């Protein structure tokens, strides 16, 4: 064996060797709200896939029929887009990409991308399913451990997990408070 000895390393061993998703930062409620151009609730009507304008990436597009507006000024419908999907016999899979189904009742935080698309903010962090009782449920658990650095005595930003289980009305009030806070800051 060209092995190791407690007090020595064989030269053979030496010569042989010498020869020789998606990672998504967690967002706070304030960050999510501030970064979103639109915050709307409604129902997904339909979906379709297509190449982007450079014919480089495949995106899946969704038409959302807007029933409630928490931030921004959308029309009656909003087109939102998520990376990935299949066109013909070519597909693109992106771990962590958000998907919707026609018929889904959702509340979404939407961010404008450089290519002009409106996309769910913070990946799945910006998507909430609305149940029959009007409560919000995160697609992924956002009640997870906080991913932040806290300094002793420093204020800790409101964690996003607190939205899970909230009603639409409660969320609307919270967003309004945040927007008011922003206006006053200016």
């Amino acid at each position, binding site marked *: 064996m060209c092995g190791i000895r407690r007090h020595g390393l064989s030269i053979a061993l030496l010569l042989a*060797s010498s020869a020789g998703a998606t*990672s998504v930062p967690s967002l706070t409620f304030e960050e999510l709200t501030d970064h979103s151009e639109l915050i709307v609730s409604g129902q997904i009507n339909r979906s379709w896939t297509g190449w982007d304008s450079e014919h480089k990436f495949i995106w899946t597009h969704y038409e959302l029929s807007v029933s409630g507006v928490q931030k921004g000024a959308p029309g009656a419908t909003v087109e939102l887009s998520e990376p990935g*999907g299949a066109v013909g016999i*070519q*597909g693109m899979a992106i771990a*962590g990409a958000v998907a919707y189904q026609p018929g889904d009742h959702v509340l979404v935080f939407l961010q404008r991308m450089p290519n002009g698309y409106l996309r769910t903010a913070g990946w799945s962090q910006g998507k909430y399913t609305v149940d029959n009782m009007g409560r919000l449920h995160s697609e992924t658990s956002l009640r997870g451990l906080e991913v*932040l650095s806290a300094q002793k005595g420093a204020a800790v930003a409101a964690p996003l997990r607190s939205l899970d289980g909230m009603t639409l009305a409660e969320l609307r009030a919270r967003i309004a408070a945040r927007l008011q806070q922003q206006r006053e800051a200016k």
Partner: protein
Amino acid sequence: MRRVAWVLLLLTPAGFGYIRETTNFVGSTNVPVVRVDNAAIPFFLNNQIVPGFQSSVSGAATPNITSDSNPQQAAHAALATWNAVTTANIHFLPLQSTSSGIDPNDYQATIAFGSTAAELSMVGGALALTVDSYVSGPANPGAPENPPVGCVSNCTYPAQGDIYDSDIILNPAYTFSTTGTAGSHDLQSVLLHELGHSLSANHTGLLGASMYQFPTNRFLTTDDLAFVNSVYPPAGGGAALGTISGTITATGGAPVPYALLTAFNTSAGVTVGGVTNPDGTYSFQVPPGSYQMYAEPLNGVVAINIYLTSTQASLAATTKFQTTLYSGSLTVAANSTATANITVTSGASSLATPYVAVTPVNGSVSSAVTGGPVTVPSGQSVDLVLAGTGFGSTLGNSNFNFHGQGVTLQAGSVRVDSSEAIGGFPLLRLTLNVAATATPSLASFIVTSGSNTLSFSGALVIVPPTPTTTSQSVVSSASFLGNGSGNGAVSPGGIYTIYDIPGTPNLGPGGSNASQYVQNGPYDAYGYLATTLAGVTVTFDGVPAPLFLSWGQQLNLQVPFEVAGKKTTQVVVNYLGSASAPVTVPVLAVQPALYTSCSGAVCARNLADGTINSAQNPAAAGTYVELYGTGVGVLSYTFPTGQGAPGPPAAYQSTYTYTMGGSPSAAAYFAGWTPTEAGLAQWDLLVPANIGTGAVSVVVTDTVSGASSQPGAKVFVK
């Protein structure tokens, strides 16, 4: 000199229980995607990714790659970490360099920063993402839009779900480093995660796993191994595995879809996660052994990205349940199935997500609270600190159950610490006794308070103990001598060995098991040796050293040329995130040393025919012998640390003399770095006449410094 690729790989337990990427998009059939070039996967690193790189589109004031980082080495190490899984049929080829950027349709797997609107839109707010281009549509659909690369006729077209390109887009909005710079993200752990996606792994539910959505590890956990072991078994079958299967139901018998499952074998250090199907059933494979298992709700502590329709989400919302342990223990035999059905306890938990930190016992949390999984150095006692709703004085030891290898809760140690607070919550401290381990593993814990539970699956990343060494233990790998006064010493560019403190083999993998040392692979496509090997990094004044071997008792490395001109250097050993205290080691300009322990291989060659010099093959007088060693320091021709030496220029003059068999001192024909090798030196010497036969002593001396090689080196003459 002939290069031999000699790779000794870490033995890693096999497992199963994973979540795969699929073709699941709107209304389509859910087919897993998979690599078909899994045995030889080429990856290219964009050549703009260098220390100090700053994207023109980032708008940031700081570089995207910190100037003290080595991104090529980070990428190389990430590839090597996946390649070290010997129980799966996957292999990434040596990293190659490219000037090409991201193109998901060019059949070239590329790592690059996003630079166009299209790419920046894809990556969104993520640190990075992987685009896996696959064949959609029915089976055997023929080529995508382009035929396979290099194929002109009779092409073998991929089948549905086959990945034919993977590109990793790094987000220029963030700063990456390989040195742990504050405010940066660790490039190696991010790439390790993204490469998992390129193999078609999706995100897992175990907080400390590399494939968790917020990766922090430079190593793979048993859960990550579960994926590759199951999806890419070696020809002829992989490791012998058993199966755990069953159904998770709610009270009344309704199935629980998308429940997270954690199975653990604490004696073997295996923790594997999984998730139930929409009908509440599950099945996953694990190494044989005794297991415990529990189910927890998807919307508990653990974040995982599983697509749910409104109906499914509503179902999940209305089937809140507590973390529920399987009531028995499971004995899993190879190639057989053990059944574990769990009826979960209904109801939402009132325990809210706490903040988590690990500190020294009674240590301050001011800089320790990071949230997410926490790293726990083994071989010591630490405080686990929790803060959140329900975490107060009503909890005691009996409310906590820890499930991990060598992790125990110290009796009577659960206590409230009101001296600090996080988020308005007081701190709840628990002291954990963590036995020393030579390999990293995950541990989980469940908190039970009345009828409420909260589980932290894979939240504790148990890593080997903090490395310890001394300045006396840093010695030449050829002579095993320090500076002659009992202290260690190094010279620039030389190959050196760092020993552990006897009895504490904590420098790298394997503890004191000599069969578990890990050697480096060949030079990468950039011509550099890796500076991270099996989780070990060694720095000299912050400069990472190329590593030849990692082991609990011994590290072999090249001392960076950057220490030249210094009187001392500070050496730090980092193993899986645990850093040693710095040790100060003297720096010598040169420290010539000859290898004497060859175990049948070369210490010297007879240059007449290139054969190995030995008692049976001595050199004749009037011929040349070539002796190998190290420690010649900075010469008149230079080259970067970690790269093989170039050939000397024609005008190069050696400064060495030598004596052989008591002969008068004579000038060496050549003395310098061995071409194509990093850290290896050679002396080409004429065998004088009339020095006898057999083994004769050789000493080489640098005439500038007066430093000589150690006594005892010999060469065979006839």
